């Protein structure tokens, strides 16, 4: 395990219990920081707009990322397309803090993800289940998040992915050692990582929830299901009162186990973002299906 990889996992540990917010300009980044975000994700269009407008979604303009970097003191993340290692090289050159190799952007490679161990900068990747999470970690991801279904304001897929991962982790724990190789084969996951999960009963990296979180209650739900923090994409800046909603989601994530606080912060937030029923989305537009 390289020193750099350890440091990259360590940064994710420092983000635990926090909210990472999608922002499209410096002004939104400042609002996010003031609301108590632990990091911002710089991108040109939030997932809800990518869905509406269609077309190829790519890495953001480096100039816009730099402006966001100038505007805030919290860590700045940005998205690269799945498999687009040159976008990742560019983001590393800008000197941001984390790259999200993200299914929300149009994949550049349908066969191969980025070999993330080639980089000094940390990566976070989406996963729907334990096998997918361990494949990404095998490639060098220093942090995992659920894929959920971004830009829908519908938490159901994030719940499915988090429950799946947690239940698979618990199952591994109870398998006798001789069955772990078969488990690794069936999940399509690196054997050494399967061994480590079985022993520690947790992922070797921090695991956040993402994709469809729109309310403080959604955030607290994901935390109670075992998530270590949350990403909120369209949920904040596509709502009626982004500032208020951002603050409420931050509080709900920190005090996810306190229903009184959750009740208080959930009041009077105004309209949530425009939302979508998952089964009304054509199959080719399901982002969680991207990557493998």
């Amino acid at each position, binding site marked *: 395990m390289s020193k750099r990889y350890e440091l990259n996992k360590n940064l994710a540990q*420092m*983000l635990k*219990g926090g909210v990472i917010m999608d922002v499209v300009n410096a002004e939104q980044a400042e609002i996010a920081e003031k609301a*108590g975000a632990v*990091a911002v994700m710089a991108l040109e269009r939030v997932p809800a707009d990518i869905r509406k407008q269609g077309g190829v979604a790519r890495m953001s303009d480096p100039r816009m990322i730099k402006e966001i970097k100038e505007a805030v*003191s919290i860590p700045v993340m940005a998205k690269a397309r799945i498999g687009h290692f040159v976008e990742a090289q560019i983001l590393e050159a800008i*000197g*941001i803090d984390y790259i999200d190799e993200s299914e929300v952007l149009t994949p550049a490679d349908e066969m191969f993800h980025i070999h993330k161990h080639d980089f000094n900068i940390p990566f976070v990747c989406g996963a729907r289940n334990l096998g997918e999470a361990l494949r990404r970690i095998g490639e060098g991801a220093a942090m995992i998040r659920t894929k959920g279904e971004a830009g829908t304001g519908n938490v159901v897929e994030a719940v499915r992915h988090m429950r799946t991962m947690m239940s698979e982790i618990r199952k591994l724990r109870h398998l006798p050692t001789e069955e772990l190789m078969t488990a690794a084969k069936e999940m399509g996951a690196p054997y050494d990582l399967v061994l480590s999960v079985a022993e520690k009963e947790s992922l070797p990296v921090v695991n956040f929830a993402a994709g469809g979180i729109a309310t403080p209650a959604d955030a607290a739900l994901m935390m109670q299901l075992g998530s270590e923090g949350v990403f909120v994409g369209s949920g904040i800046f596509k709502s009626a009162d982004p500032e208020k909603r951002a603050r409420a989601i931050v509080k709900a994530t920190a*005090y996810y186990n306190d229903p009184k606080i959750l009740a208080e912060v959930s009041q009077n937030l105004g309209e949530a973002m425009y939302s979508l029923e998952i089964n009304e989305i054509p199959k080719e537009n399901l982002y969680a299906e991207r990557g493998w």
Partner: protein
Amino acid sequence: MLKIGVLDIQGGVAEHISMLERLSDVEPVKVKTKDDIDRIDALIIPGGESTAIGKLLMDFNLLDPLMHKIQSGLPTWGTCAGMILLAKKISNHPKTFLNVMDIQVRRNAYGNQLDSFRTSLKLPAISKHEIPMVFIRAPYVENVEKDVKVLAKIDDIIIACEQKNLLATSFHPELTDDISFHTYFVENIVKRQ
């Protein structure tokens, strides 16, 4: 049994708890409310994002009670973000948070994540062995008032110091296996108060 709290608002809480579990006669406690603050013998403020932790302390009316408690002698150790929260001056941030320690700190002093690093240092006052140190987007101390004792420097820059009931470190002992700073905090700060 000493009840040592870890401020559980955001950040590397579990890591400090598992270090404290290795010490004898110490009961680690997560601190999230004013009642929790009143129940502890000492406090660790972990690493995380100082702006996020500071904001939540304010929103949940914990900042003032915590400040009074620390001013009246609660042994407190801030690691990384925790050190920023303790400082009376922050060079590159307009406001301070708990405002209790006579140090001037610089946030993200080493740069962004690509500048995060790991090193080790021999500090006879703390441990016989070389101490591993992890710096993640770390702050450092630019200035101290005269009753602050400097414990460690790297390249002539202060990265650990203490003042009466307070201990501050730029780095994260809880991200290593080395227990010497936790032991030092309990033996030399908590038990001497």
